[in-house]
């Protein structure tokens, strides 16, 4: 195997007749000009796949094929069959496979297969550990703090291990780094809704309201904590917005409700919309709701004027 582009490692492949990839087909669209490495690696890996050989050397070959075509789901599936056969109930060997996957993940952060492959490995593992998952989760979040796949995998882990201990703190850490991190805000709602069978304890909801308010003070025009705040009231407090929260929101909309033609800047259009939503709940405050929607439509959020006008029409209906 000298001069080869296929790295045999410590294995022997001399008995394997490579399965050549078909090329130059008639009227082919998207004809890819394969290089030699591709032809050799895919030739050997596919020959092993065709035999369904479940062996250490086959595992080694799939590593090379997967790094050349990370989207080739059949090769991933073949790899999983090999792992299941060879490493089945062996925690140390399965951890070795997780090590390989960690490395692959760092090099292919946007790949679609990595996280569901990981879930399959943990489900196969006789003694999976949440702590084993934390370093790769941290590395991937550090790389892209809003990566949807990574957050979804973390939440899957939280439910799989039924371990909510560090989650609010984890979210707070990321919000401290960037108060606009919407994934970190959504994570809090996920924790509150998943951890408790019924509703979370009132003391925790109150703590979270204070937390959201404090973060809003830092950056009032940030939709994420406003959404969270509204969610807390709607999901856990029967949608009963008290005067304390109304007064809080009013501090970001000074002047709007005193003068229908007010056009000086306010601190937050989200505060105004939050108030409009509350005022829509009771007929006696419809006037204030209309005032808020008009101000949004004309001055503070004109791009959504059609929707704000629709809300005004709904008030009259």
């Amino acid at each position, binding site marked *: 195997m000298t001069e080869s582009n296929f790295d045999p490692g410590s294995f022997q492949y001399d008995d394997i007749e490579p399965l050549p*990839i*078909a090329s130059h087909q008639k009227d082919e*669209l*998207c004809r890819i000009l394969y290089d030699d490495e591709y032809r050799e690696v895919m030739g050997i890996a596919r020959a092993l796949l065709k035999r369904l050989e479940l062996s250490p050397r086959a595992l080694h070959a799939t590593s090379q094929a997967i790094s050349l075509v990370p989207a080739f789901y059949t090769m991933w599936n073949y790899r999983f069959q090999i792992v299941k056969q060879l490493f089945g109930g062996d925690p140390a060997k399965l951890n070795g496979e997780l090590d390989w996957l960690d490395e692959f993940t760092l090099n292919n952060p946007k790949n679609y297969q990595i996280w569901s492959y990981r879930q399959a490995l943990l489900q196969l593992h006789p003694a999976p550990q949440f702590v084993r998952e934390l370093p790769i989760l941290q590395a991937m979040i550090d790389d892209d703090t809003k990566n949807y796949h990574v957050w979804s995998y973390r939440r899957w882990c939280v439910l799989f291990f039924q371990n909510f201990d560090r989650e609010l703190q984890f979210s707070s850490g990321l919000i401290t780094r960037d108060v606009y991190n919407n*994934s970190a805000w*959504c994570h809090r*709602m996920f924790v509150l809704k998943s951890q408790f069978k019924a509703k979370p304890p009132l003391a925790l909801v109150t703590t979270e309201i204070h937390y959201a308010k404090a973060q809003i003070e830092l950056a009032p025009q940030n939709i994420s904590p406003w959404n969270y705040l509204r969610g807390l009231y709607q999901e856990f407090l029967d949608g009963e917005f008290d005067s304390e929260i109304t007064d809080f929101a009013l501090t970001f909309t000074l002047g709007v409700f005193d003068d229908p033609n007010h056009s000086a800047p*306010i601190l937050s259009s989200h505060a105004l919309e939050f108030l409009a939503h509350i005022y829509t709940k009771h007929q006696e405050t419809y006037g204030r709701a209309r005032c808020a929607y008009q101000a949004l439509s004309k001055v503070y959020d004109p*791009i959504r004027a059609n929707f704000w006008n629709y809300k005004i029409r709904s008030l009259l209906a």
Partner: protein
Amino acid sequence: MPLLISDDRLLNSKHQKYLERHLAILPSKYQDNEANKLAIVTYALIGLNVLGVDTSEKYKSSKNWLSNHYREVDYGGSCLLAGFVPSTSINIDSIPSLSLINTLFGLWSLACLGQEENMYDEVDKERICRFVSHCQVESGSFVSSFDVTPLDGCHTSSIDPTDLRYTYAAIAILHLMGCRRSKDFEKYISLQSILANISDQACAQGGFGQYCEPHAGFTSCALSILHMLGDQWSILTPTFYETTVHWLLERQVSSQGSTTSMAEGNENYDLADHGGFQGRENKFADTCYCFWALNSLSILEDQCSARFDKHDLLFNYLLDTTQNNLIGGFAKNNEDDPDLYHTCLGLAALALRGGNFNGPLFLPKDISLSIS
């Protein structure tokens, strides 16, 4: 065929050349896309159709090549199924790489190459529907493929993701194969578990997503599914749909009013994004989310007979900001190079707003109308 977008700023011939290049010879750096070949073909052909090119004529000679990706497979144990493999170059016939996603891309491409009246004559519709049926798992969601085992019956993949994209693919395939109402779909799949799964992903602030985080892409999948089923809107409340309209409209980035105060502080806010849509809160606008959000809005607006978005601003964003004036194509944003996916999605968004694109089915209307 007519051009589906009327705006002088559209660089039609540059986009055509850009898309046609992707159907020709690709350098070896495209190797890692071998398993996505049918996606490349689909995005290029749909984009060309939007530009007014009759692809069924222009690429007529490649129809056989495309049809070679269609496979009828006997998995044993009375599993006689059919679908598409991603690439004839790397497929192994005794271990076929049939997948739900490639079957959808294959059927989309076939629609772009076929003649109107007999578009799907050469595929076995019943076997394709049975393939979809076998991809459904207990939770109601779908895997895309089967475990790699000898052909002794089909076993749903142990390692596939099962998010709403796959449910969308399942429903879209069944729709293309002729299912129109719930009872048609229920011949092959359990709708009850799908609908429960979709309801689970409805988020408090509106929109759909995994684990309480709404996402414009998943929202488009969920709403397209409900649109194709047609008679299942009651699984969620009218209030939720209105909240979702609001959530979607909030995804249109603005450089007016109070929003501008984020220019300092929010590192994912760019005044140049004005009019474009983001996929989630506090993210940059992105060409593909213009389509996903617009498709979602169009579906819901049809439900409540109203139009909310400022489509002139969206046109400006796409044509003045993400369209590439030199080589054609559309980029994700105002900084990146153009790519095929964002080119197709940008063109689809423009055609959708013009009323010439079937968003839920992701086909130009003149093609989707011929699939009766």
